[in-house]
């Protein structure tokens, strides 16, 4: 009398293996929601799997704030770390590349090859820096839609994203309802609350008050590394959870600390390392632009959450994580409750995990089953 319905988990999982990125370039002027524009749009992206003849098996993955287009595979056999969602994407995995054509692009405003504040303007020969137009999530999604056009895909099988990627996912189904077959939003929200804006601004202030920031006109060699590292350290705390940090570090100490304020606790060492690593791969101005775009994102506007969501036609799955205090379950539920009030096909699932906001980046059988199942529906 077993009440459970086990999912068959036997599968031949493989890896997408060696991948390379590509650049989509549009030489048409790209206009931003704010009114600004840039003469040329570039989005760096990767694809895995094959687009079928009907061109209806494409899945777009939207990355988080400091993520990028490299979500699966490796660039070379020497690369130690595969793409950020490698456990989820590949042959036989939930986002099955034997079945689906998977696309992931670096967000507009980012710094991993897509147009952003650090890009050299073809008009001036100089980086845009603060001349880069004010950015919104809607701009990011519109740029992605142009990439999708260029790949010959009219309608996506699904859009999937976590955190900032979840916000992009919702913007997709709001702005292009007829182009999305289904969607999954993980650890996301309909707008930032005061606490989240407060954290973001503290991070931005760390950058802006670093003398090396130079009003955004720093050089690649001499940027506001200290401010950016502190911003990252603080933001990184918000991606974890109290319990998760306690389990991982507790009060464990390093062997020796000579100076009073040297690294003493393991958690200090970890966060400082995260800060140092971050400045080698992320641009401070991109961080400012992207966090500001997220703070301004508000599906309650311009009139109401229901009105904004009324265009949604695709069935959706929203996933919250119990220990996520950055984008807590409540904010994810708020989205689904509004969709259900509108009579939409929307589901909400919640996973009890200790990894805080980053839970969606952690491999668990439940998340595995959920995503696999929903994409097949």
């Amino acid at each position, binding site marked *: *009398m077993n009440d459970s319905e086990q999912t068959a988990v036997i599968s031949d999982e493989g890896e997408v293996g060696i991948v390379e990125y590509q650049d989509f370039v549009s030489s048409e002027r790209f206009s931003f929601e704010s009114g600004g524009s840039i003469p040329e749009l570039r989005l760096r992206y990767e694809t895995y799997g094959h687009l079928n003849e009907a061109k209806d098996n494409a899945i777009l993955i939207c990355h988080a704030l400091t993520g990028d287009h490299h979500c699966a595979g490796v660039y070379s056999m020497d690369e130690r770390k595969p793409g950020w969602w490698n456990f989820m994407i590949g042959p036989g995995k939930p986002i099955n590349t034997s079945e689906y054509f998977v696309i992931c692009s670096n967000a507009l405003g980012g710094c991993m090859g897509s147009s952003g504040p650090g890009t050299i303007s073809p008009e001036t020969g100089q980086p845009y820096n603060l001349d880069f137009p004010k950015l919104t999530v809607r701009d990011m999604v519109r740029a992605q839609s142009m990439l999708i056009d260029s790949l010959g895909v009219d309608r996506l099988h699904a859009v999937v994203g976590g955190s900032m990627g979840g916000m992009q996912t919702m913007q997709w189904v709001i702005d292009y309802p007829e182009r999305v077959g289904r969607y999954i939003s993980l650890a996301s929200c309909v707008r930032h609350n005061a606490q989240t804006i407060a954290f973001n601004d503290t991070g931005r202030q760390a950058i802006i008050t670093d003398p090396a920031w130079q009003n955004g006109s720093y050089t690649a060699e001499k940027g506001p590394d200290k401010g950016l590292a502190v911003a990252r350290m603080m933001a990184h705390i918000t991606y974890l959870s109290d319990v998760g940090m306690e389990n991982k570090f507790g009060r464990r100490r390093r062997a020796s600390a000579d100076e009073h304020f040297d690294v003493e606790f393991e958690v200090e060492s970890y966060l400082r390392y995260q800060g140092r690593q971050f400045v080698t791969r992320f641009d401070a101005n991109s961080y400012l632009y992207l966090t500001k775009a997220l703070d301004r994102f508000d599906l309650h506007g311009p009139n109401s959450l229901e009105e904004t969501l009324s265009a949604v036609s695709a069935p959706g799955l929203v996933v919250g994580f119990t220990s996520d205090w950055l984008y807590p379950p409540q904010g994810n539920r708020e989205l689904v409750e509004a969709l259900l*009030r509108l009579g939409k096909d929307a*589901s909400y699932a919640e996973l009890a995990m200790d990894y805080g906001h980053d839970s969606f980046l952690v491999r668990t059988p439940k998340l595995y089953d959920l995503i696999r199942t929903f994409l097949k*529906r």
Partner: protein
Amino acid sequence: MHTQHGKKRQADFQVIAQWVAEGERVLDLGCGRGVLLQYLKQTKGVYGVGVDIDFDKILSCVKRNVPAYQGDVNEILACFQDNAFDRVIFSRTVEQFDDPDATLQEGLRVGKKVTVGFVNHGYWKNRINSALHGSRTINEVYPDPWYASIPANPFSVAEFEDYCMAKNIRITQKAYLAGDWKSERALLPNLLAGYAIYDLAAS
């Protein structure tokens, strides 16, 4: 035993399906694995939403193509406007609520109709267990001893109808199933009905 329980678990499906009109908007509170909603979707073309507290149940609903919300019944009820659904279903869930009256009243606010299905604890076999053996009922539906069961607040057909009268809740339809939970039985329901199903409306 498995199939027997499976059938019993779905005892009220046919009755509820008869009462549900084509294309209704249905909210199933305590939807389990979404079997009822899937059935109503297939047979009546309803727009149905299930609610359950358990992740695995939600996963099963997703598998069945039934929209489902993982969370607390009272919280989800609170987020809907009056008469948001044509029907709110409580199939074998009322006995588990902390405040059954408050939840039922919320159901009557959110649904134009409320359907309640429950095991009649006035059924003679259940009385015998209590009277003769001094023990709770253990059968294929309630297989677990008290120490391995979730808290439940069982009630009888008579108690439920008294409640509806006291609270001025209209019973618009009812069906009593015999001890096998299959055939309908109208005589002496508090003693002879194993299972009861009601359609309710606020007065």
